[in-house]
Structures are given as structure tokens and as C-alpha cells.
């Protein structure tokens, strides 16, 4: 009787589990693959920037808290910089890959997501809103439409976008 009552649900569950592909959830692309793809399989050597003094203060102000690292690696070639940055959404760190060109975001991608909710921010339909966005003071120059229930993931993505834009600008000012 019991089995009959819930048979449809059990069958549907088993079917869904069976047809699922066997990939580890959470890692959508490795850091290495992102960088390789960003520079058409010819990535430059990585460089490093130390978050000290005014740079750290500005990064802290853009994120609303200190960044979880003292040195950030980046890749630079032909006027484009690529960044791998981590930021906590609700409770878990999310890894983002960001490419900056001419002080604007060329591309942002969620590389790793571990939160139990808010994963909708990884969809290309969502991330493409960031294309061409630049930094205006302490804010992005465009409003990003959020996803219901994914507000904290959206804030994390806005935060790392601002940090990548600022650091890229900082490097460019330094080299002038």
C-alpha cells in the first residue's frame, strides 16, 4: 500500500539520480582552464600584487571587509588582465574568474560554488549583465538585476568585480 502510494515519487527520484552526470558539483571550471581559455591557450606567466597600504584600504572599502589574502595573483597580456578572486556568499567561499580590458569587465564567471542556495548567479544569462561594466567611485556603473534568494551571491559577485576593476586600474596607473 505504502509502496504503491509513493511509487511515482520513488521512480521519479531514482530516474533523476540515475540520469545525472557524474561530475563533482561545485567546480564548474578550474582556475587553470579559465586562465588558459582567457588567453586562447597561450596564457602569460602570472604576476603578483601585494595588498598593503592604500591598496588594501581601498580593497577593504570596496568589499566591506578585508580580502582573504595578502598577495593576489593575476595574468596580464596585451592590455587584458585576468583575476581569480574568492568571496563568501552567505557562508561559503565562491571562486570567480574575471577578465578586465580597458577598465571594463570583459567577462566574469563562477568557477566554484559551494553555497546551498543562490547558485543561479552562475548562469551566463546572469553573468553577461556584467560585460562592459566599469567602476564609478565605489560602485559599479550599472545596476545588476538580482535573482530572488541569491542576494548574497550577487553581493559577492559585485564585490569581486569592483576589486578586479580597481586593481586593474591601479596597475595601469602605476605603469604610466
Amino acid at each position, binding site marked *: 500500500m505504502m509502496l504503491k502510494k*509513493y511509487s511515482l515519487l520513488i521512480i521519479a527520484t531514482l530516474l*533523476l539520480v540515475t540520469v545525472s552526470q557524474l561530475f*563533482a558539483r561545485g567546480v564548474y571550471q578550474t582556475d587553470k582552464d579559465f586562465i588558459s581559455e582567457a588567453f586562447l591557450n597561450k596564457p602569460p606567466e602570472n604576476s603578483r600584487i601585494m595588498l*598593503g597600504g592604500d591598496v588594501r584600504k581601498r580593497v577593504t572599502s570596496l568589499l566591506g571587509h578585508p580580502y*582573504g589574502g595578502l598577495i593576489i595573483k593575476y595574468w596580464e597580456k596585451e592590455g587584458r588582465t585576468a583575476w581569480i578572486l*574568492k568571496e563568501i556568499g552567505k*557562508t561559503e567561499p565562491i571562486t570567480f574568474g574575471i577578465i578586465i580590458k580597458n577598465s571594463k569587465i570583459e567577462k566574469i564567471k563562477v568557477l566554484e560554488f559551494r553555497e546551498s542556495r543562490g547558485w543561479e548567479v552562475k548562469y551566463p544569462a546572469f553573468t553577461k549583465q556584467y560585460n562592459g561594466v566599469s567602476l564609478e567611485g565605489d560602485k559599479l556603473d550599472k545596476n*545588476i538585476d*538580482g535573482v530572488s534568494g541569491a*542576494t548574497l551571491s550577487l553581493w559577492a559577485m559585485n564585490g569581486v568585480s569592483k576589486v578586479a576593476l580597481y586593481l586593474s586600474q591601479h596597475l595601469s596607473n602605476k605603469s604610466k
Partner: protein
Amino acid sequence: MSIKKSLKGLVALALAIAGTFSANAVAAPSNAEIFDMMQEMKKELKNLKAENNALKGTVEEVVVSTDEAIKAQIKLANKSHWGGYGELHYNNLEGQGPGVSDTKQIDFHRFVLYFGHEFRDDLRFFSEFELEHSLSGNGHPGEVELEQGYIQYDYNETTQITGGLFLMPIGIMNETHEPDTFYGVERNTVEKNIIPATWWEAGVMLTKELKPGLTVDVALTSGLEATADKYKPRDGRQKVANASARSLASIGRVKYTAIPGLELAASLFMQTDYCQGVVVGCGSATAFETHAVYKKDKFQLRALYAAWNIDGDDVKAKGADKQNGFYLEPSYRFNDKWGAFARYETYDNKDGNSTDTEVEARSIGFNYWIDPTVVAKFDYVDQSKADAGDKDGINIGLGYSF
């Protein structure tokens, strides 16, 4: 200029003086020349001091930055985490009509603590512990509740399995209800009285992302237990406290979020015996809920409809066989700090009877975000019950989450 260079300068100066004296026979330096040399030495010393101070500053900066970075890194790497939310409410509502009393009270409505732990990248625990109305126990208004307590496993990139005590996948606010995420001091009455939020059960849930932006949840859970004459879904929540499991339930939800700013969802709940077999004349229950959330720039619209169909002669005789409601809530976020809303809501827990028992409410108000997750709220509400009187007045709230 480096220290080495400065030292070289000093040595050269000393040698020059020594040389000058050794060559005294030739030409002793004049007082003016010695004065010039001393001035140069003074300048060099000043430069050295400045460089030394700058170096000290850099070292201090590195120490402070390292300290901050380590603390932030620990937070990133931490496997256990905690958080919480809370809301304090002041209600000043005046009742008019038969059987409608005033509501003039101040209440720390919810104090919630979260605790979670990540066992592995693909296996985690999450819990939510709540104290309602500040004081619990015999004769006190509050309750201490375990609102969530589950293990979640990522089977693969698109499939999650959740087991334990979890929030039912239904409605807008049932799963996301931190006070800084919604307008209005009190939660809307439709989700409270029809869904009934906050609603949790124990069981197993499978979440599958069929396509980017299209997610399905299916769950087998514990069920409600309504008692005779109390057929509201809200009264039937057993809260997984020695809960009767004679009649289990199943729930499914389809959610579409492929377009930024838009969420469309529909849930269906089914239970074979709404009263767990203890009430004659009480049968199966089905609940259907659908909602839309649309955000565009500063504008947001929330719309929700929920309905119950409950079988059984006794339930029908009480008019509780049909219970339903809907609400519409447009809002506008002026900036990071201010947002205003208006809401129309209506529900009926006895829509199956011949008399009008509908409850209607209209609200208008604003939120002021002191910080992104700290909010002060104000609203005016005008509520009318078709079979009783009206109630209107103001609510003021203060809420937070972290």
C-alpha cells in the same frame, strides 16, 4: 637614496676632513668650509632618518595587512560557521467591530541562530535554532524551535540530496525570510495563514537542475496533523516534535530563474490523511502554490497565489475544504538606503462555507537599510475581516541578519 650611499658620503666626508688635516701643511680648511661640511652631514642624517621612518612604516603596514589577511583567510577556510537573524516589532493597531481587539504590543518576535558545518566539499550540515517571542515556557508566549537541521549532499554538478529537517519548497518567504530581504514589519498574512510559513518537515528531498535556470525539487516528508475544528494548515504543523507519521506527505516544486530578475515557481503538496487518521470526516489534502518575483532596476513586483483542497465531510461542513489567498506587492528601491512598498492581500481559511469569511488587508510603508543587512521598517496596515470587524494602525520594526 640608500643607507649604503649615505654611509659612503659620511666616510668620504671624514676622509676629506682627515685629508685636509693631514695636508694641514698645505691648506687648513677654513671655518666656513667646515661649516659647509657639517651642514652637508646634517642633511645626510635627516635623509637617513626619513628613510628609516619610511621603512618602519612599510614594515608596520605589512604586519597589519598580514594580520588582516590571515583573519580573512581563516574565515574563508573555516569549515564551521554561524550566523543569525532577529526582528523586534512594535504594533499599534486599533480594532473596530465585534470581537476585534486592539493590538498594542512590543515583541522581540524572532531571535534565530544558524550553525553549519562543511564535512567535505560535497557534504554539509545546516541548522537554524529559533526563539520566538522572547520568552518560552509554561504560561509564556514564546517557543524554542529547531527550524532547520539537515545534511545536504551534492551528488553531482546538478543534483543535491537533502535529508533531515528542512524548510518546505513552497512560497516566496518560506525559505528566505531574513527581515532585511522583505518589506513590511510583519510577514504577509497569505503565506502565514495559507502556506503556512514558516513550514518545515522532516524527510528526504532531491533537487535537480534540469537546465540552467530550471530546477525541480521533489520530497517525501512528514505531514500535517489537523485536529477537529482546527483545520487551518497553520494549526496542523507538527514541527517534527514527536510527530505522527501515520500519513506521510510529498511535495514537488518547479522553479524557473533563467532570466535575471525573474523567478517563476509552482509547488504541489499532497497528503493522504490531513488529520493523521484521528479525525472522522477528515481526508486527503492537496495544496497548490504559484508565485512570481520580478525585479527590474529599482522596481520589484511580488505576486503569489496559494490554495488548499481538503477532503472529508467534517472539514467540508466547517467550510475548511477550500482555503486560499493571494497577494500583490509592488515596491521601489530609491537607493541603497530607502525603499517603499504597497501590498494588497486577501485570504480565506473557510472559503468552502456559504458565509463570507474573507480577510483583506492593504499595507503601505518603507524600509530604511542602516546597513545592507540591518533594516528599520515602518508600515501602515488596514485589515478587514468580512465576518468580524476591522483593524488598522502602524507597525515599526528593527531587523538584522548576519
